[in-house]
């Protein structure tokens, strides 16, 4: 345990009405606030603290509650002052594109490859060094080295444990859910990035026609539409639906909060295919960022065993570098089907959005 004092300076504004006209003048005033934070520092990290470690600006499409602890660790061991802007991945990508070369960001940590793809297409990433890219499987990084995967998640079906016996009741692959026996029992989140990535994978594996038939078949089964993954997991546990198409890790957070009696579990479709597609959160360095060296330190840190162990143990994700243990309930990544598509390809993504629009899934 190590106590670290973090200084926050806050600008206060005083607004003054000047002699009756409503001109507003501003005067900054600095107030020092001290907060004590406990930071766990692992011993394995070998990073040398420099005299003036400087700073780093992170734009994160991943949420604060997930990644702030590991960022705090990075700051503690390197002494680098890290400032983070949090938001949804698509919003952060839009912000970066609006800022253009004036962006204060050094790195962009995106929840899904689509967001990274949008920023890459705007030409804002710097190419990452080959030895950094070499740490991660080539399937989980951009083709031209713009970004690299940090941690992975798999598509699964979440099922209600009271009504479904996974050994006998579930089909081998996604296609099975178009059968009429599933009518009124399914849920999905068609606007969600991970779901759309899965559909993109379906299009690549099955072709447009079969994918369209699948979408229409699921809709014909009166699928419940959810805004994102988490309410689907909650709905599966409550019995509102029997099956939801989700990412694997939300379930583990629900169980952590509500206990083992939580009435939903994940199932990896045994027949393979895009039903258990693996997707990654990505990081890339913004080429106009002022702190290039620190940005690279951060990328390296995220691919270090310490950070990878954090993702495996604390956020229930798949580590992407060799030699880090996964959560005991997860199917190893090597046993999941590998689908060779570029999930950051926006043209592909648009094709998926068009298909979803065409069948009316986005209404």
């Amino acid at each position: 345990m190590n106590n670290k004092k973090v200084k926050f300076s806050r600008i206060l504004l005083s607004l003054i009405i000047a002699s009756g006209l409503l001109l507003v003048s501003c005067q900054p005033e600095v107030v020092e606030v001290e907060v004590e934070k406990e930071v766990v520092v692992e011993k394995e990290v070998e990073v040398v603290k420099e005299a003036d470690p400087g700073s780093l600006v992170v734009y994160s499409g991943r949420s604060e509650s997930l990644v702030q602890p590991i960022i705090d660790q990075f700051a503690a061991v390197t002494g680098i002052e890290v400032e983070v802007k949090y938001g949804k991945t698509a919003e952060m990508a839009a912000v970066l594109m609006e800022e253009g070369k004036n962006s204060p960001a050094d790195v962009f940590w995106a929840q899904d490859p689509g967001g990274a793809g949008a920023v890459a297409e705007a030409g804002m990433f710097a190419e990452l060094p080959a030895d950094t890219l070499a740490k991660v499987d080539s399937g989980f990084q951009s083709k031209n080295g713009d970004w690299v995967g940090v941690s992975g998640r798999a598509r699964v079906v979440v099922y209600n444990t009271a009504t479904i016996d996974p050994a006998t009741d579930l089909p081998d692959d996604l296609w099975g859910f178009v059968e009429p026996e599933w009518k009124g029992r399914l849920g999905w989140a068609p606007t969600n990035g991970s779901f759309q990535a899965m559909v993109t994978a379906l299009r690549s594996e099955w072709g447009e026609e079969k994918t369209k038939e699948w979408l229409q078949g699921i809709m014909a089964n009166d699928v419940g539409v959810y805004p994102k993954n988490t309410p689907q997991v909650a709905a599966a546990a409550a019995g509102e639906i029997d099956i939801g198409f989700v990412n694997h890790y939300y379930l583990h957070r629900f169980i952590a909060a509500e206990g083992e009696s939580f009435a939903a579990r994940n199932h990896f479709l045994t027949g393979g295919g895009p039903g258990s597609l693996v997707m990654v959160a990505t990081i890339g360095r913004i080429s106009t960022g002022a702190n290039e060296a620190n940005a690279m330190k951060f990328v390296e840190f995220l691919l270090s065993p310490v950070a990878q162990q954090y993702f495996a143990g604390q956020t229930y994700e798949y580590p992407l570098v060799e030699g880090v243990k996964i959560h005991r309930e997860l199917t190893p990544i090597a046993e999941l089907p590998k689908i060779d598509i570029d999930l950051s390809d926006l043209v592909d993504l648009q094709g998926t959005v068009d298909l979803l629009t065409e069948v009316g899934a986005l209404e």
Partner: protein
Amino acid sequence: MNTIIQNTRKISIFKWLIWFAGALIALTLLLPAFYLLIRALDAGNSIWGILFSARTMRVLLRTIYLATSVTLGSALLAVPIAWLTVRSDLPMRRFWAILTTLPLVVPSYVGAYLFISVLGPKGMLQKWLSPLGVEELPKLYGFSGAFLVLTLLSYPYILTTTRASLMRMNPALEEASRNLGYGAWSTFFRVTLPQLRPGLAAGGLLVALYVLRDFGAVSFMRYSTFTRVLYIQYQSSFDRTGAAILALVLILLSLLVLLIEIKTRGRANYYGGHVGAVGNPIQIKLGYWRWPSLLFCSTVVLLSLLLPAGILCFWLLRGMRIEMAFPSLWLSAYNSLISSGLASIFILLAAIPVAWLSVRETGRIATFLERVSYSAFALPGMVVALAMVFFGANYAKPIYQTLYLLLFGYLIMFLPQAVGALRTSFLQISPSIEQAARTLGHGPLKVFSSITIPIAWPGISAGIGLVFLTVMKELPITLILGPLGFSTLATSVWSAVEEAMFGAAAAPALLLILLSSVPMGVIVLRERIE
């Protein structure tokens, strides 16, 4: 003689300054529209296909239908509560007045999630009722759910503006009506209600525009509105240009709503001919009606506030039971209070010239100014935030990602709330009172600060309250425009809910409600409604 000439000169300087301030504010408020036009010029062809598709038209009609229904529903909840808490001898009036405004601080996605967990197909209520043989609850998903959540969370807009109108209303009219032999009901419908038109219209406008820009409740409740289509454009296609075109349509829609508001508010004068300060209004004795009245108020509070707060408490307790680590909240709380407090003052100051011009000046420019102030209000926060990112990062770098630019973002988003509340109160002040003060030799500033502002106080405090509550819960602008590392209670709630950490979300959410009740309490306790 000399003083009169001097005074006239002062008045014209005063006027020019107000015009200048008004013009400056209007320019600021037009920034999002400029930005959208710039973006829309780059738009590809595919977006026109989306825009003019039968599907989008259907969504557009559904959006209008939802906005209309929620506005009417909110008025039905708000007007009785406003009247009861200002005009009747309802027990614990101030207590009800505070509690009934607080639902405004609950973010709509949180509200929707909580409602589903209670009233959803397999929610808590269903579980409690199933031993009694209730197999299925009425359908929540779809229009009914969206209507329910949005009405319960946005009726305080109408409540606040209507209460301000009631407090400022000239009691002589009602007295005259009672003296002429009309009963309480008849007086309410013939005299009071017509007098409330500006307040009702101002609040109704805020509700309708809020529905237009809402994303959280409608997506949870599976009722696709125009804003959802716009979000899909950003989220799924990363297409800013297409989204810009859709956002321009939202601006057009808000202008349409504005026209309806102007029709509703009417052209009449709402001030008494000679009365300066308001006398004490008649307090109606409720008699036996007090019981149904109490039942009504408590039902509304139960559904809109206690139900969400109760579930949040449940989550919190459950989180504590498993000894979950709760991150420290006091910095977020401090940031929330500071940003909401500063925003309320800043926005109020900006709203005064706009509202004053729109009431006192009859020309087209003054009317235009007021319209402009509403143009961004129907835009989803994210669109306003991106506009400010565009201008801030490229043309105002020194204030980019500082509290200053954040305040401008809030100004663009929330000015209409303050203008709406203020305007209603200014309307109730007779210009002859101001003129009388001036002929007594007081300068325009002195008249404004010692006559106009004190008389308009109900509207001013209503404006402050509305802005404070909505900034407290604001999310996209705070996330995008805030200084690096800036977190508020609203961002803490969002960050936790996003990852299904409900125990961690409950603490900041409850604190949000609790802290908001303090300034609302101060405002209500200062009211003179004896």
